[in-house]
């Protein structure tokens, strides 16, 4: 009984999977008697058998379906969209029951009365209407067109009013559908109509020549062949070592036979990729109904064979991708027409062998991937920085669609668009050593190319050695090899104690394999490690790229991966083991396992952290960003970037002369333009770069010759300058660079501005003088403050005497805690209105909390400093005026 049931399930499942396909073809070609006959017979067989082994539920459903098909066969019912949908539903139910059967050997409980009723309903309709076909045709077509799915069949029925037209149409349709039939069918090799017919006739013959073999038997056979191959390799090696061996000739023969045998047995495991595609025609049909799109599916190379294990693994990713293409890739019919394309979208699957790999292409002729949308999403998800997005090459942008959480579909449909999927597809494909690539042209379509190995059992591997132990590593994950020696350009460098390699401007973390395998304790002595000659294998695991340092790299070998013993399963670094040609066992390193081990041991994190801390260190040094530009006399000049509002390019035709100076329209206003150097003359054509400074809503442009770049550099004025426009010179990037005094230019521009907001308010600053001169002073003066610099060393009662009894704003650097105390002390009780603004070194430590009278602001946040100052100013201004309280003083 059990055997009988199993056989029934296997057979029925096979029949059913063929039905899906046939029905979709039938819908397009409702008058194909052969197809109808096939479908009818399949369902009939299921019905008959389940009556025989006693499965009432399945029998009822199959029976109802068979009745409808019977009516279609007799011509009383014509296959239209509605009928086919119902039959497909019936077949789905049969499948569901079969699954239940396979699971627990009994029919799953459930009620199919509704489905059966509807199926029977179809019959009664066809019986009632059969006397007047004309009437039925009209009514049905009216109903259907209101249903918005004008299929060819309905048109056909309407046309049945006119015999002539009908004939024309049927012939048209036949030629069309018979073209389609081979495309849909998995037997791709025949494209002509006759061939299809012939094939159908031949089928029973072929069936008799094949037998069912349990998969595990094939697996066993495969394992034994692998052993045979290995033994042969051993023998060959032995014979090769001894000259004039009498075994040479028979061994040659053995070699030949073994190779043949291996190939043949491999073939038994091979299946045409079409078996993974059988679900697709049905899927596309359902999708085109759901999405109201017209979709053609073209399957090319269905007979391309690959390992059934691989087929199982790519089945789901393929379905997902086709679904994606149909849902997102293809446009609506009206969109397509508007874009000047055929109304019917096309999805093409193409499979072929190339270079020991199987290539599978999934192409659609839809709208293509929107580069901008992906970019926006990638920025929103934090995969790339907004300012870097434009510099990322197109191909890399497309790769973002494989990241989790990124879907460019605007709305989530029940089909796809939830942003999960493509990442899973990629992981699945990478798991079997494959790669996936995407190309897209806007409005022309998108094409995914999957490259997968033919089989999983034989892997091409690199043999490496470390500390006298040999290991194999799958070649697919090795990106490249770098040889390190005393004379080589590449060197292993260290961040703290972590080795890194500079490879084409990228910094790669490195791992010593011997340390990873604990073949020798980690050495703290960096010199010892660095001096040795070694090889670095650059491995890629998912997103991570890292280098594995080994002593020696030998050749590549095709090896049969065998699972490791249970006792070694807990060592994730090994993905398997194998016997080499010389008979020795070798362990196969698993790059995924290595990466996972690294992730656990935090080596990668350490390296990342080290990078981060180096960066943080740089930040902590608090170097302001300088904008480097070239003056018209070719000299390099710099200005703190924070002082600059914008960088603009002005067309010379937009610049006009106004008396003694240039000006240009800038955001609804006229902005004075001052050349950085007197030698500037307005060129007759082109544009000039301009640094824009803004003060109190007034703008000033400084025309420069060329903007070079920005650089993080501390401002230490090496040489003071006599030039009033220049604060002094400093060394930037090894070059002497003038730092311009923006204040000079702003003063100069003042007369062109409508009204000067220059006001004096007492503000003293204590701290770094260079910072004051280059940054603080210009900012404050421009805002109408009159800052005074007091050197910390000069802080005494005498210097502060003049500020007593007056409101005072003191700007103090964060670390000047003592300064603040001294200041309070010196001013004592006399100063009622001391406002202290603390300038912090780090943006993170900014707090707007007002403890007592001190407010903290990030040192380089000009806006915030000014904002806080104006707050204080408001408080001051609201105080009753006391003339004696305003004390001014500007030190020279």
């Amino acid at each position: 009984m059990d055997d009988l049931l199993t056989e029934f399930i296997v057979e029925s499942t096979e029949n059913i999977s063929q039905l899906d396909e046939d029905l979709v073809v039938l819908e397009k070609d409702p008058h194909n008697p052969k197809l109808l006959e096939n479908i009818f017979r399949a369902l009939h067989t299921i019905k008959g058998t389940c009556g025989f082994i006693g499965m009432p539920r399945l029998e009822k459903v199959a029976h109802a379906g068979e009745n409808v098909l019977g009516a279609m066969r007799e011509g009383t019912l014509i296959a239209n969209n509605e009928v086919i949908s119902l039959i497909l539903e019936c077949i789905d139910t049969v499948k569901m029951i079969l699954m239940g059967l396979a699971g627990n050997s009994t029919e799953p409980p459930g009620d199919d009365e509704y489905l059966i009723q509807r199926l029977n309903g179809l019959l009664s309709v066809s019986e009632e209407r059969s006397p007047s076909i004309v009437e039925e045709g009209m009514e049905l077509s009216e109903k259907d067109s209101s249903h918005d799915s004008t299929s060819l069949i309905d048109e056909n029925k309407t046309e049945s009013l006119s015999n002539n037209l009908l004939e024309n149409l049927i012939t048209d349709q036949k030629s069309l559908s018979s073209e389609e039939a081979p495309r849909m069918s998995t037997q791709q090799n025949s494209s002509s109509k006759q061939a299809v017919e012939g094939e159908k006739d031949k089928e029973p013959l072929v069936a008799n020549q094949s037998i069912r073999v349990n998969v595990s038997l094939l697996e066993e056979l495969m394992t034994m062949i692998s052993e045979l191959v290995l033994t042969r390799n051993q023998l060959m090696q032995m014979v090769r070592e001894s000259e004039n061996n009498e075994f040479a000739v028979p061994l040659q023969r053995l070699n030949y036979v073994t190779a043949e045998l291996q190939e043949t047995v491999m073939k038994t495991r091979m299946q045409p990729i079409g078996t993974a595609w059988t679900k697709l025609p049905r899927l596309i049909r359902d999708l085109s109904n759901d999405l109201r799109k017209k979709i053609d599916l073209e399957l090319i190379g269905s007979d391309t064979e690959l390992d059934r294990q691989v087929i199982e693994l790519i089945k789901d990713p393929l379905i997902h991708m086709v679904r994606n293409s149909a849902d997102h890739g293809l446009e609506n019919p009206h969109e397509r027409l508007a874009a000047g394309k055929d109304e019917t979208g096309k999805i093409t699957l193409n499979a072929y062998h190339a270079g020991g790999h199987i290539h599978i292409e999934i192409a659609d002729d839809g709208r293509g991937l929107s580069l901008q949308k992906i970019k926006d999403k990638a920025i929103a998800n934090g995969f790339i920085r907004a300012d870097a997005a434009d510099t990322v090459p197109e191909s890399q942008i497309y790769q973002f669609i494989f990241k989790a959480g990124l879907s460019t579909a605007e709305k989530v449909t029940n089909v796809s668009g939830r942003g999960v999927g493509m990442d899973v597809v990629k992981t699945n494909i990478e798991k079997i050593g494959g790669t996936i690539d995407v190309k897209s042209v806007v409005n022309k379509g998108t094409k995914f190319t999957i490259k997968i190995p033919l089989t999983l059992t034989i892997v091409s591997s690199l043999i490496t050695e470390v500390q006298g132990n040999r290991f194999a590593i799958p070649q697919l994950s090795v990106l490249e090899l770098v040889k390190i020696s005393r004379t080589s350009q590449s060197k292993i460098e260290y961040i703290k104690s972590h080795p890194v390699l500079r490879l084409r401007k990228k910094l790669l973390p490195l791992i010593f394999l011997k340390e990873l395998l604990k073949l020798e304790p980690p050495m703290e002595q960096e010199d010892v490690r660095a001096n040795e000659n070694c090889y670095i294998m650059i491995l890629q695991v998912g997103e991570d790229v890292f280098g594995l340092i080994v002593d020696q790299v030998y050749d590549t070998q095709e090896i049969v991966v065998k699972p490791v013993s249970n006792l070694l399963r807990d060592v994730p670094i090994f993905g398997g083991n194998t016997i080499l040609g010389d008979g020795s066992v070798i362990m196969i390193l698993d790059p995924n396992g290595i990466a996972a081990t690294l992730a656990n041991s935090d080596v990668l994190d350490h390296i990342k952290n080290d990078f981060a801390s180096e960066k943080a260190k740089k930040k902590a040094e608090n170097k302001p960003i300088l904008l480097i530009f070239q003056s018209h006399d070719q000299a390099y000049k710099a200005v703190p970037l924070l002082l600059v509002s914008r960088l603009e390019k002005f067309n010379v035709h937009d610049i006009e002369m106004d008396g003694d100076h240039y000006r240009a329209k800038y955001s609804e206003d006229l902005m004075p333009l001052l050349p950085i150097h007197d030698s500037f003359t307005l060129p007759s054509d082109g544009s000039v770069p301009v640094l824009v400074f803004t003060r109190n809503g007034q703008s000033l442009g400084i025309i420069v010759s060329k903007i070079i770049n920005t650089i993080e550099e501390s401002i230490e004025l090496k040489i003071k300058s006599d030039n009033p426009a220049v604060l002094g010179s400093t060394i930037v990037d090894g070059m002497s660079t003038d730092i311009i005094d923006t204040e000079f230019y702003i003063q100069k521009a003042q007369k062109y501005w409508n009204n000067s907001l220059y006001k004096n308010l007492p503000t003293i600053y204590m701290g770094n003088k260079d910072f004051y001169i280059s940054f603080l002073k210009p900012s404050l003066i421009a805002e109408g403050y009159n800052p005074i610099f007091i050197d910390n060393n000069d802080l005494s009662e005498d210097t502060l005497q003049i500020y007593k009894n007056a409101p005072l704003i003191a700007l103090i650097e964060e670390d000047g805690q003592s300064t603040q105390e001294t200041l309070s002390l010196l001013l004592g009780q006399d100063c009622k209105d001391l406002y202290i603004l603390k300038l912090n070194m780090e943006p993170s430590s900014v707090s707007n909390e007002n403890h007592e009278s001190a407010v903290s602001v990030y040192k380089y946040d000009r806006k915030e400093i000014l904002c806080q100052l104006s707050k204080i100013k408001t408080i001051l201004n609201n105080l009753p005026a006391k003339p004696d309280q305003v004390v001014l003083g500007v030190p020279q």
Partner: protein
Amino acid sequence: MTQSNTDPSLLLLDNKEQYLTLRICNVMFGIPVTKVRDIFDQQKITFVPLAAPEILGEINLRGRIGTAIDMRRRLSFPKSKDEYPATMNIAVELHNELYSLVVDSVGEVMTLLNKDLEPLPVTLDQEWKDLAVGIFKLKNELLIILDIEKILNLNK
């Protein structure tokens, strides 16, 4: 499948059982011969890093890969790697996996009556008590019968 017909048979006192004797550090041990698949001379063993200390490495046993177990280490004999005599590999199969017990030497196959199998003396080391099933008193010496399944379960 071998395990199902040996273990219960130990309890049937009239039955006979064949044991392969082996020596480790001059102590005689026995294992049921039904569990032995093959006996090999010294073989090249591939060292496996990061594995348990009892695992000597992986070994090629007629085209199949087996895990070599250092029986000296497993039975907690003092470490004496350098003075290893010529070793023998006893290939055993358990749950479809091959193992090789690396011992000092292999003796003969003895047929012994189950009723002569005596329980382990209480004074025996706990480590050995966990790995052995009983003792045969032979004319000249004692034969300690090992439990293969427990030997190959390195977690305990």
